[in-house]
């Protein structure tokens, strides 16, 4: 199947720094991909190069098989929703949504029908006559979404569209975007710096660090088996434990753990997510800890413990787990949820 969107060797320098460095990405038709990364990693620059707002220094952008690298933004079958709603203040909601169709010289009656349909899809029926300043933040961003989607673009780009909304509204908007994606089948690229948002909304995550792709895969795979230590760190609160990797596993504080160390040998780091740690231990790979703190965190207990050689490990355990500060426990570290990295890669 021909990819909906493909970028090859995409590069952009600002002065001496590579904002985006030889990026290769392929997006399948109907895919929902999240471009995840900290601010300044080049994800917004990438999006604007795809939209044609920033010319790349090197590389190509291909949409549905045709080269778009040197095509001006208004001629690309791509819609971009910015962080700000950017509604045109002198136009009504309806006129804002119809703006793109008007640019294509679509007959008025057809525009009116498409706009009415779009208003219903983003649940703003009845607000078509309002001016942008009469809308709430969430409503404004829904108008911006409708204005982008009414053009039936080949690719929909979203540049942190909900980062200025409050938390509950953000979750509601994610649901809406996902719903609109599923009903229209538009290939969507969603830029965010929030890993929870990326996991919640996307089928595929591309993690960008320093202008390059650090990792790519389904949310489950990136969270459970991060391919690099930087990925594990960015995806948050992974325990990092220092030890020695050898052919049979990983030696942590005098105990051998039967993990898959791959090709890593010598000084190494083992990562495991706090919620993957078992108590009582069910798996064969076990380790002794001294409980150092226990904190009730609502739906779970957040505890810390020290290994024999003094390294700190965070555990998220079910409420009611038998934990007493200062006592020794034996926790299970399931081998399939441990990842081992060479120390140099940090």
């Amino acid at each position, binding site marked *: 199947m021909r990819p909906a969107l493909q970028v090859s060797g995409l590069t952009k320098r600002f002065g001496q720094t590579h904002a985006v460095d030889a990026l290769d990405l392929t997006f399948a038709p109907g895919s929902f991909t999240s471009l995840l990364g900290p601010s300044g990693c080049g994800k917004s620059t990438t999006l604007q190069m795809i*939209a*044609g*707002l920033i010319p790349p220094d090197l590389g190509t952008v291909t949409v549905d098989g045709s080269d778009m690298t040197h095509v*001006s*933004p*208004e*001629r*690309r079958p*791509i*819609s*971009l929703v*910015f962080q*700000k709603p*950017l509604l*045109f*203040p*002198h136009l009504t909601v309806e006129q804002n949504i119809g*703006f*793109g169709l008007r*640019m*294509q010289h679509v007959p008025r009656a057809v525009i009116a029908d498409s706009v009415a349909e779009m208003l219903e899809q983003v649940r703003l029926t009845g607000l078509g006559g309002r001016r942008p300043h009469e809308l709430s933040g969430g409503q404004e961003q829904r108008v911006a979404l409708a*204005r*982008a989607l009414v*053009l039936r673009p080949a690719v929909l780009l979203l540049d942190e569209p909900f980062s200025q909304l409050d938390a509950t509204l953000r979750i509601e908007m994610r649901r809406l975007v996902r719903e609109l994606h599923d009903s229209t089948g538009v290939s969507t690229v969603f830029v965010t710096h929030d890993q929870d948002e990326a996991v919640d909304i996307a089928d595929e995550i591309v993690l960008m660090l320093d202008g390059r792709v650090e990792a790519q895969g389904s949310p489950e795979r990136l969270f459970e088996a991060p391919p690099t230590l930087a990925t594990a760190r960015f995806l948050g609160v992974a325990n990092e434990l220092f030890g020695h990797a050898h052919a049979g596993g990983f030696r942590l504080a005098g105990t051998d753990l039967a993990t898959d160390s791959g090709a890593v040998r010598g000084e190494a780091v083992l990562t495991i997510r706090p919620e993957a740690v078992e108590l009582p231990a069910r798996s064969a790979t076990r380790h002794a800890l001294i409980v150092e703190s226990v904190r009730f965190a609502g739906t779970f207990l957040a505890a810390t413990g020290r290994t024999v050689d003094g390294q700190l490990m965070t555990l998220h355990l079910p409420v009611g787990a038998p934990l007493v500060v200062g006592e020794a426990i034996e926790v299970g570290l399931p081998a399939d949820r441990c990842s081992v990295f060479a120390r140099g890669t940090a």
Partner: protein
Amino acid sequence: MRRFVAITIAAIVIAPLVGLILWSGARSWPYPDLLPAEGTTRGLDLVTSSGSWEALVTSVVIATSVAILSSIIGLPAGRVIGLHRFRGRRLVQLCLIAPVIVPGIAVTLGLQVFFIRWGLSESILGVVLVQLVLTVPYAATILGAAFEGFDVDLERQARVLGAGAWRATTLVTVPVLAPALAASALLTFLISWSEYILTLLIGGGQVQTLPLMLFAAIGSSDSTAAAALGLLVVAPPVLLVVLISRLLRGRAGLLIGMVRS
């Protein structure tokens, strides 16, 4: 308090006009009398004469052209000043203000030679061009301030939605900046409307505008004619301000504080 301020301002603006109206209908008005001794229709005749109407039309044509051209030139200039931070920006701003600081007559005396050589003197076109020297800095400064508060991403958004550079400007930038453009056009219209020296120098007396007629009447100590022409000079700008404030009612952000009605 607000009412008091409004009444005071109205009194300051309207009181001299009452004097003008009385003078325009007076044949003679000796010193201690409260009202003119004898009436005359000479003022009215002058104002309705073909010479006055021609001067009125000339003035309107010149002021309107100056207002439109200043805004057209001021828009890109204001964009650069307002949106971009570049080396020498302060110098450009200073140069833009320079014609305001340096008396117009000094600039014009230098320009006059070239206008004569290029055949632009004694023509309406020449007068419009020389007045632009004076008005473009105001337009560029007003529009520069407006562009500082303008979000260029609106244009980028319009581009992504299928508008070319031209349509992004005419359908988004210009409407969003409409209040500032109106302020710029109004201000430059008023500057041109009351301009006397530049018109006289470049127009060479051939381009008769209302201020020229007015100054001639004042110069010949004809108070009746001066008062009548004075009223004719005052009327169009007042109408213009009222018209624009009606058009822009409800739109915030006009630089001249006259929108709130």
